[in-house]
């Protein structure tokens, strides 16, 4: 071990390449997954120093047990009306996804992404935040908008890129922007919203405002440098922000092991920055609500950021562009041990005597009908296709506040050429 001599007899190195538990055609089992009991995780005071509850990054905050009872210190004790409102938003989101997915298959739009199985993640959070808290979502949090009561027709208009699309057909379907609902413009580039959310929260704090920010990304997206700079800034300036990592086990075809899940949890990422970190059963709307409320309290009282890992499962393909059967076991979704978030919340309402199976069926029918009616209205504004729903001239508008000469010239030339060609 002289500093300049090689070592003799060293063993050969090996590269470890992660493998998911099951590939197509294989049995799927989550037997190795230790699922802590509902109610088992402790609840620190929302102003406790992060070093005092690091174990929560390795635990799993669960409120609803297998019988649908709400148990333990994280039980948010919501009144039945609020529970029903949450349930309704979740069912509505699912109905919306279902219809829009089919609309894509029918050629009415080019692209869609469902959030099946993950509805609680968005809707639990939306109910725990104030309506003017600012949201910086990824593409899979349509539930936030629906929970905030935003116009579903407006969302559909965007998906159809039709004449009523406020975004003027400029964005891929589902890349909503709704300032009125404090919902930031969604980007196609993963994780870029993370430092933006932190910056928004820092600005709010610097101004002595009261509004906090929340942001979401997938577990796969945590690998981007933007995630890291967001955590660093959030930690350094104690930004009033909630950083949500939706661990739905998959990133397109790559299982969470390629984002680091074999080595630790995603909540542990927050530990690395000294950020308060919680790991939550993402299929348990009450757990998501409680964790978000706790984090919001913490942020509102100047105790800084919280990172929440939502442990859930992407029950469908990544988007309409992929077939999950090509890369994972088709039995996996059924084997997922944390159940279905809609069923679990409904079960809870039934368990406390505030709901019935019949009411649930009725709610689902009603939501489906509402979505179908909305779809009809939206389609009256046109659907996507090779026809052009927007005037050509609009393409050049809004690049800058004022159109500079070179864009004006390009606009003029294009319109002239189109005209000359009889288009």
């Amino acid at each position, binding site marked *: 071990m002289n500093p300049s001599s090689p070592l003799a007899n060293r063993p050969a190195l090996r590269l470890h*390449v992660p493998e998911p538990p099951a590939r197509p055609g294989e049995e799927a089992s989550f037997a190795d997954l230790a699922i802590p009991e509902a109610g088992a995780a402790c609840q620190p005071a929302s102003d406790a120093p992060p070093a005092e509850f690091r174990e929560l990054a390795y635990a799993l905050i669960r409120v609803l047990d297998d019988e649908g009872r709400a148990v333990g210190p994280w039980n948010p004790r919501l009144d039945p009306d609020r529970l029903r409102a949450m349930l309704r938003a979740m069912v509505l989101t699912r109905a919306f996804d279902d219809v829009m997915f089919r609309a894509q298959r029918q050629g009415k739009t080019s692209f869609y992404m469902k959030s099946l199985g993950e509805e609680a993640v968005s809707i639990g959070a939306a109910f725990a935040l104030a309506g003017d808290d600012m949201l910086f979502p990824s593409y899979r949090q349509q539930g936030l908008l629906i929970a905030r009561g935003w116009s579903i027709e407006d969302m559909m208009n965007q998906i159809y890129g039709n004449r009523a699309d406020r975004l003027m057909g400029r964005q891929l379907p589902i890349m909503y922007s709704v300032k009125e609902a404090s919902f930031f413009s969604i980007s196609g580039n*993963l994780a870029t919203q993370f430092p933006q959310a932190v910056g928004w929260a820092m600005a709010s704090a610097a101004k002595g405002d009261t509004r906090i920010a929340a942001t979401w990304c997938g577990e796969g997206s945590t*690998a981007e440098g933007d995630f890291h700079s967001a955590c660093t800034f959030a930690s350094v300036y104690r930004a009033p922000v909630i950083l949500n990592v939706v661990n739905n086990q998959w990133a397109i075809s790559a299982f969470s092991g390629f984002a680091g899940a074999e080595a630790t949890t995603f909540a542990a990422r927050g530990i690395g920055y000294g950020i308060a970190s919680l790991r939550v059963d993402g299929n348990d709307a009450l757990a998501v609500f409680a964790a978000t409320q706790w984090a919001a309290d913490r942020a509102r009282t100047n105790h800084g950021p919280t990172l929440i890992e939502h442990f859930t499962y992407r029950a469908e393909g990544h988007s309409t562009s992929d077939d999950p059967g090509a890369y994972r076991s088709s039995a996996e979704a059924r084997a997922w041990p944390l159940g279905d978030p809609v069923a679990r919340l409904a079960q809870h309402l039934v368990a406390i005597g505030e709901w019935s199976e019949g009411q649930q069926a009725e709610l689902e029918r009603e939501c489906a009908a509402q979505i179908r009616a909305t779809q009809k209205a939206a389609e009256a504004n046109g659907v996507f296709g090779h026809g052009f729903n927007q005037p050509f001239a609009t*393409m050049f508008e809004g*690049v800058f506040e004022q159109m500079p000469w070179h864009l004006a010239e390009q606009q003029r030339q294009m319109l002239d050429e189109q005209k000359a060609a009889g288009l």
Partner: protein
Amino acid sequence: MIGAINSALDVMLARDASVVVMGEDVGFFGGVFRATAGLQKRYGTHRIFDTPITECGIIGVAIGMGAYGLRPVPEIQFADYIYPALDQLVSEAARLRYRSAGEFTAPITVRSPFGGGIFGGQTHSQSPEGIFTHCSGLKTVIPSTPYDAKGLLIAAIEDNDPVIFFEPKRIYNGPFHGHYDRPATSWAGHPQAQVPTGHYRIALGKAAVVREGMDLTILCYGAMVHVVANTVAEMAIDAEIIDLRTLIPLDIATIEASVKKTGRCLIVHEATRTSGFGAELSALVQERCFYHLEAPVGRVTGFDTPYPYSLEWAYFPGPVRIRSAIEALFEDLRP
């Protein structure tokens, strides 16, 4: 073209144990465009593997592997997502040979689908090749046919310098003639669709004269080669069409000879106009062929706007715009 790319990777993986393929979804799944389908099964997870979603990391890791002595072929899933890797590409891969006086090199080939025409919206349609041509130390290669794609990709992998290899995704499955409202065509029957199974190389830095002609020279690359060729055919004009194939190093001799012969030059690319590679081509042509030019060098390019999802076909440089630009080259605008 996807098959040709897959075949190039296959050939190189088989020939050279130092070739490794890495990127988001390239492993078991075989890539979102299927470019790496079947390769992991054949060569194992040590040679073809999925990566975390960090383009910065993918390129940084590839550079380290290159410094070790491997020949990594990282994929960036869409060219629109190459920006997080820009620092590693421009400050590291491109500069390593120079700054270490040849001690360390980064013989990596970065494959990435680019360009529009598939309704991908702002972040699945961009053509950022111009940026890479501005950064010294990088080669930039763009094929337009299956035959070229394979030969150029093999040459790129064998090259000892870092190569950015942009694949025009619009023509992955067939040549596209620019008429979005007509049925799609497949590669079947195209003269350049026949791809030999074995190893062959198309030298980097050599353009292809796709059509000889006397009236004007059209410089283009990627998907635009087909749109141009089709428009020229429709106009029945005697244009010389040059498919650049490699932007850096550029085949200036072929360009210069052609423009001196025809006296007119049009440049066509999808990328935004301002400071796009077309600007460099225009500058070079007028610097070198000034006294031969009978009309200003023209450009048909993407507009200086973000890629607009629903107006894609108004944005995409198509037959209408190319025709009109060709006609303008023959108008006498002398004041």
